[in-house]
């Protein structure tokens, strides 16, 4: 039962995700807007973030079981060595774990734009870590 082929999935997209993405894009420079592309039974959000001086290209993947399964975000721009970074430059955002107690993802409260905001925060931490050697979010330690 998928995001793109179930009634519940389509309603979630149309009533929650698409409106928040369109609100995010309002007034934003075109190169920083979110584009949403269908890839099979998944959706991919392509966008650029610039927490300080450096632009990063990213993609956030909404899998077929989204939002019950958290979105997966990876940075396409090459990154240097750092913690909280998984294989393929995938960001560690929600703590690993598929149970309610081991994951920080909450499908009842979070949207795809929340995931993008979390990615922004991750990149800000990444830049700070390279300057100071300290990952600034204590709950991530």
């Amino acid at each position, binding site marked *: *039962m*998928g995001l*793109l*082929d*179930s*009634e*519940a999935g*389509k*309603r*979630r*997209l*149309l*009533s*929650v995700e*698409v409106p928040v*993405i*369109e609100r995010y*894009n309002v007034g934003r420079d*075109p190169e920083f*807007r*979110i*584009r*949403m*592309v*269908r890839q099979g039974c998944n959706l991919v959000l392509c966008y650029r973030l610039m927490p300080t001086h450096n632009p990063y290209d990213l993609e956030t993947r909404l899998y077929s*079981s989204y*939002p*019950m*399964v958290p979105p997966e975000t990876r940075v396409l721009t090459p990154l240097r*060595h*750092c*913690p*909280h*970074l*998984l*294989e393929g430059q995938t960001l*560690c955002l929600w*703590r*690993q*774990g*598929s*149970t*309610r*107690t*081991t994951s*920080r993802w*909450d*499908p*009842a*409260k*979070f*949207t795809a734009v929340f995931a993008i905001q979390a990615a922004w925060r991750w990149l800000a931490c990444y830049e700070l870590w390279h300057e100071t050697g300290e*990952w600034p979010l204590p709950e*991530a*330690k």
Partner: protein
Amino acid sequence: MPSIVQVGAGSGGMVVLDLASRDERVTRITLIEPDEYKARNVARHYFGGEAVGMPKARLAAAWLQNVRPDLDVQVLQLDLTAADAQPAIENAIQSADLGVCAVDNEPAKYHWDALMRKHAKPWTLGEVLSGGIGGFIHWFVPDGPCYGCVASFLQREVTVDKPATPDYSQPGGVVAEVTVPASKTSIHAIASLHAQLTLQLLEHGMAGENKGFDPGFTSLLFTLASVPDVFEEAYRPHRLRIARSAECLICRPPPLSSSEDLDVALDQALARLGHA
């Protein structure tokens, strides 16, 4: 005549099935369970090694018929979330009075919740915590809090686990999720509470009073062990009343559209956002 539709016949689900079937007011049970019985199931399940390799649904049905030969037992050896299984599953839900969820993965719980809300059925859920240190039982009715409302609240407000901090210092590091199997006794303790709650909700519904049901909680956390930084005391009930959340993205009402309208609207949205 009261009938139950249940998803899951694992070590906990089988306990609920067995106890529910012994209530002679229950006349029909429909079981949704796609899995085969495995050797690793034997330690915590009802069936012995001779049952390994057989469908759990068939084993469960035979067990129930043995306990209650007059019970109408239907089995659907289907994956709850498989697209091609939905017509049969929805048909089973439509003709039942109450649902029971005995699965242990989050996507399946949300999917069950959506089906129960779609067909306006009350349902119950039982969950045993990692290590069997305790467990939850929950009940849901139409227009009440959904599983999303409950899960969101519990994630924020209730600590049931203090896993060791993973080592995030190395790039590419993957932290394996560790779930400690619960003992058979802890599974039976929580599943028995689940069965008790289910039969009480069913009885309430039989009296035509789904809306007045109040066992003193919407979710009950029952501790079975004292765990430092998690549970102060063993054998302590925590009664939680969780209200429906107006901000819940799972159950807040969507705009009314037909299926065709949804497809058209989605295609239009993808066209707009594909060129944003």
